[in-house]
């Protein structure tokens, strides 16, 4: 079990990236959602022991990782959002180096690297230096390195950026499989990435945890508050200024809007079932509204 207790991270200049965040992570996948600048990457770096929190405690199976980060590193798989590689090494050489850094024996490293290369579908490219890899292929090398040490905790930050749709699905399924007996934390701002695999979703903004729960719970918050309306293109901005609009499709008959509102925004509005994107926007906009004034959560 991984425990985050009142974690705060303040950078030089006073920027508070994570602000008193507490959560407990057991086996399974937590999808961390939030807008850009929400503090997701800072939190991921803290969990992966790359960044030390300014205050608060990070604990794994009872061990305080803020005091002893090495206690987890051997069992941690971390895929940062942005990373480089040694361009003149092949993927096999690169993984062999990282396996040694991780402390794996030569025998287990060799076998595991082959398995991982197959898993991420890079066996045909193993002899090429990494500088010749595409962005997506490098991302898959990153995924492979995260799984090198058979990690008990997996932290992946925007892992599917740069992957093609098929690889994206494949990787999501892989994470889902892994999460059966591991702690997996997946950070993204792509709602569809977590929608299909995460049974537990945390929404973060301004360094704080705004909401956590199963997708159904989050969507349940908006039950009866999502509407579809068809409006004239000239009135779209007026609607947007009053309501949170989660989708907009231009059609020959006008513009079809998906609107979050406690009351029907117009007389002929059709109530629709909320999806996770609506729920996410509801949480984010609701928090923003609560910060600015006390207007209803789904109205601007």
């Amino acid at each position, binding site marked *: 079990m991984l425990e985050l207790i009142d974690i705060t991270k303040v950078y030089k200049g006073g920027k508070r990236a994570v602000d008193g965040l507490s959560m407990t992570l057991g086996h399974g996948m937590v999808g961390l959602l939030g807008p850009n600048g929400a503090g997701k990457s800072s939190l991921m770096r803290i969990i992966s022991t790359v960044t030390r929190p300014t205050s608060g405690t990070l604990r794994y199976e009872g061990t305080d990782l803020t005091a002893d980060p090495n206690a987890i590193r051997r069992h941690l798989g971390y895929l940062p959002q942005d990373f*480089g590689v040694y361009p003149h090494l092949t993927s096999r050489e690169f993984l062999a180096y990282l396996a040694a850094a991780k402390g794996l024996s030569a025998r287990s490293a060799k076998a595991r690297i082959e398995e991982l290369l197959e898993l991420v579908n890079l066996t045909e490219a193993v002899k090429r230096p990494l500088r010749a890899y595409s*962005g997506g292929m490098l991302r898959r090398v990153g995924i492979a390195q995260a799984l090198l040490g058979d990690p008990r905790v997996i932290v992946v930050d925007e892992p599917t950026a740069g992957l093609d749709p098929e690889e994206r699905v494949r990787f999501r399924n892989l994470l889902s499989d892994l999460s059966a007996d591991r702690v997996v934390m997946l950070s993204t701002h792509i709602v569809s990435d977590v929608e299909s695999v995460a049974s537990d979703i945390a929404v973060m903004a301004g360094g704080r945890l705004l909401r956590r729960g199963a997708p159904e719970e989050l969507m349940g918050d908006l039950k009866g508050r999502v509407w579809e309306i068809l409006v004239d293109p000239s009135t779209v901005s007026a609607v947007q200024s009053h309501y949170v609009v989660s989708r907009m499709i231009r059609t020959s008959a006008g513009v079809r809007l998906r609107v979050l509102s406690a009351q029907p925004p117009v007389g002929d509005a059709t109530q629709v079932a909320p999806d996770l994107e609506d729920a996410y926007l509801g949480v984010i906009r609701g928090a923003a509204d609560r910060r600015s004034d006390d207007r209803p959560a789904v109205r601007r």
Partner: protein
Amino acid sequence: MNLSALPGLTAGDFKDRVRRPVYLVVLLAAVGLGYLAVPPADGRWVILALGEYRGTYNSAYVGVATALAGALWLTLGGFYVVRKGIARDEETRVGQILAATPVRTALFLASKFLSSFLALASMLGVLAATALAMQLVRGEDRGIDLVALLKPFLVMALPLLALTAAAAVLFETVPVLRGGVGNVIWFFVALVVGIGGQSSSAPLGGLGVGRATDSMRAALTEELGKGGDRAFSLGLTQVAEPLTPFRWDGFELGGGFLASRLLIVVIAVALALLPALWFGRFDPSRARRGDAARVPAEDEADAGSLAGADAPGPAVPVYRPAPTAALTLPKTATESGGTFGRLLAGEVRILVGGVSPWWWVVAAALTVTGFAVPGDLVTGLVLPAVWIWPVLIWSRLGSQQVEHGMEGLLGAYPAVRRRLLAEWGSGVVLTAVLGVAPLIRMALAADVPGLAAWLAGVLFIPSLAMLLGVVCRTHRVFQAVYLPIWYLVVNKVAAVDFMGAVRDAGAPTGPTPLFYAAALLMLGAAFLAAETRRNLSA
């Protein structure tokens, strides 16, 4: 050409340059130089002298001495600071954004030239302030004449800095000069400029020192009555006795002199703009294949079957995604085991990765030469040669993680110190392998002091590289520091002989134990700096 974007581009680039640690390092070195240029009255060193005489420390003399020393240092060290302005735009992909704007290539190059020039000029400004302070500190003449003090900075040093800034732009746009080869070439170019430029007959007046020395000689002759035509020397030199001061109140600017200095600036501008003829505006299809791979936060979609042979840019291997169902988790259990050997092997691979086969051919030729030449040439010629050849590779030590963007990934890995030790070890291995011929020759000759000096070199070079790499986070500082040290060794300066190349009656005369201590201290400092940086960045 619309010049309205020039100030903004220049200012942005200038700020980016001066906020880098390497700028501070070179700036501090410049301040130190300002101190050295004006030694105390009983000092046993000198930078500017006429035979056994030097000028009284008034504004004119202190200005000339400091400006000339600064010009020499900033032409060499400053070049390494202002390099990579264009490469950085390429790495950060800012270049591609700029390439898609209406900014013309010439304007872009002009902004790079100007920002480089401003960065160097700002260091010169600090040096001028140091000169003023030193005049007051030495106190031989406390009368401040700002015109006399600043004149040499403006007419002697600034044109050379313009030339340096232009060379930095030019070197970055010529593929073969972009990397370490360019750094080494510039070292020798700066050497030629610094030494040859002192001659009055140098093209365009060289450093511009001729006018000042003529005037100094005239003043000395006037003071002594005769015999003022002493040899002019510029450069850090030890003297047996403190120099005798004489009164010199500066030199007059002539129209011809000013025109020649201005011509240098014009040539510099032309050199900086010349690459507009071939500069590729960050078009990836014209990039070199050896460029570092890096996964950006939001990269283009994976070039799978969609990116075939017709796709523009470097060839990308095509792969076939496996069916989604074929997902098998790794089954091999992970066991712990001894890792240092594999870490070291990995670090050696990383260190020498991408080195051209020709490099190895030359290294092999040097080794064979080491076995073939007579004994005295082994340490006097072959050893310095084999220990300058890997300078570009050593310079990667300590900064490879940063330069390849690996910090984020490796930050979550254990065994930080072991990895650092392995990285240093890879440098030791490379140094020892390159020096194997002198090692065997000295062993066969039972040259124990030589072997001890050789070992000091094997430890000293990677330690220096590690420390500078870890602290400055760039490979250029080691290149800028090591080359002058090596040059002094080749010129038989025993005090800095870390390899046993300077000999007297066949025995090394360098302070070998000092280099053992220095190697250990620098390695310790590198570990400490890495740990501190890790804690600070965390």
